[in-house]
């Protein structure tokens, strides 16, 4: 009996050490803030790039913008074919050489560019899943290609691909943990730092894992409620 109580007290002690002394909880909070900031702006950038690239790819077929399509193909091939961490290091070292660059901005841009390639392919699949007659109906009413795309095709496409997009964003949040390689003190980095101070690395990492879990669960809850709202028109 005593052994079990001691074990619990030991666990309590190590988690206490990982959280309370030197106001270490502030480091986690700050890490969460950085992770959320990078994720948020990366998702935003990813959506913008994704929509642009997807629309260029599906519309280039019927226009003279073949060269734009080639650029998009190269972008998707390179981004999907190289490791995220290598991309992060290259962009950090090569493009942002200035000493006073903001690592959070670099991180957000880098993850956004990376995510954009995946989002573009998801959105393209969504656009191509919409019946051709929808584009024809829009055009026959006098709407131009871009108006029809924006008002008729994309809203339906996005509704169809919401689960796949949600998946991509959850992966993105988790992958921001790689950002520590460019000296960003995100949640993972904060946990490692505290672990090195308290000589006990498992409790802070467990705390970080729980924080990631809460963030991704929150995001997937949010997406489910958006999905439900968008499904209004499916009622029979």
């Amino acid at each position, binding site marked *: 009996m005593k052994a079990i109580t001691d074990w619990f007290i030991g666990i309590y002690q190590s988690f206490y050490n990982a959280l309370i002394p030197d106001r270490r909880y502030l480091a986690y909070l700050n890490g969460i803030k950085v992770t959320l900031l990078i994720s948020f702006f990366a998702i935003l950038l990813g959506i913008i790039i994704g929509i642009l690239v997807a629309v260029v790819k599906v519309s280039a077929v019927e226009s003279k913008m073949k060269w734009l399509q080639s650029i998009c193909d190269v972008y998707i091939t390179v981004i999907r074919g190289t490791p995220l961490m290598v991309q992060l290091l290259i962009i950090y070292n090569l493009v942002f050489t200035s000493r006073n660059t903001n690592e959070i901005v670099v991180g957000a841009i880098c993850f956004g560019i990376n995510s954009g390639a995946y989002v573009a392919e998801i959105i393209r699949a969504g656009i191509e899943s919409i*019946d051709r*007659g*929808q584009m*024809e*109906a*829009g*055009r*026959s*009413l*006098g*709407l*131009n290609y871009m*108006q029809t795309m924006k*008002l*008729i095709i994309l*809203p*339906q496409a996005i*509704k169809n691909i919401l689960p796949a997009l949600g998946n991509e964003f959850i992966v993105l949040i988790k992958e921001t943990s790689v950002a520590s390689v460019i000296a960003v003190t995100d949640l993972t980095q904060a946990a490692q730092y505290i672990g090195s101070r308290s000589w006990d690395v498992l409790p802070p990492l467990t705390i970080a894992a729980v924080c990631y879990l809460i963030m991704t669960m929150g995001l997937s809850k949010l997406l489910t409620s958006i999905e439900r709202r*968008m499904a*209004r*028109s*499916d*009622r*029979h």
Partner: protein
Amino acid sequence: MIVIKDLKKSFGNHLVLNGINEKIEKGEKVVVIGPSGSGKSTFLRCLNLLEVPTEGSIWFEGNNITDKNTDINLIRRKMGMVFQQFNLFPHLTVMENITLAPVKLGVMSKEEAEQKAVELLARIGLSEKAKAYPNQLSGGQKQRIAIIRALAMNPDVMLFDEPTSALDPEMVGEVLDLMVQLADEGMTMVVVTHEMRFAKKVATRVLFMDEGRIVEQNTPDEFFNNPKHPRSKEFLSKIL
């Protein structure tokens, strides 16, 4: 109103339209019939450039719409089109389906467009469906909404691409009735259909197409009672 000069259309090596010359006057109700694969749908879809002709030209109200400098989007506002598969926008309510184009194109204010939609819905007896989504409607209701969606733009001509082919038999009547009403009001109409009763009742002229050409054309009385071309005779003997 519409002049078609030497229209040709091919998909790859397959020649679908092989030189069509035709003139459609204001107020005419032209019904296009023919066996499947004869090019009648392609012909209709060329009229508003949903299919781009390979050769030849099409003139609408004095404008050469096949000319690269013509803004086809402006032309299409005046040419309503109704599709076999209805093509209502499933993510929008019936009201939004009808008002989307007039409002977004700046042809009407939102209030005007909604007022017009209310009138059109009342006319087809579907006022209570304004807030419904297309998925909640029957096929016949969908197609009638699709027709008034096109009418909301105040078109000068209406193009119908087999409007009743995707409908259950008992719903064909309600769609044809609306089309007959339109015809009686003087709308210029070009209709691709397999409904011979409609052709007999409404058409001012019947075009019979086969293998990418207009083989024979006549008034419905003459065409159905006294077909001249062997292909027309064969076709009519099979379907009547």
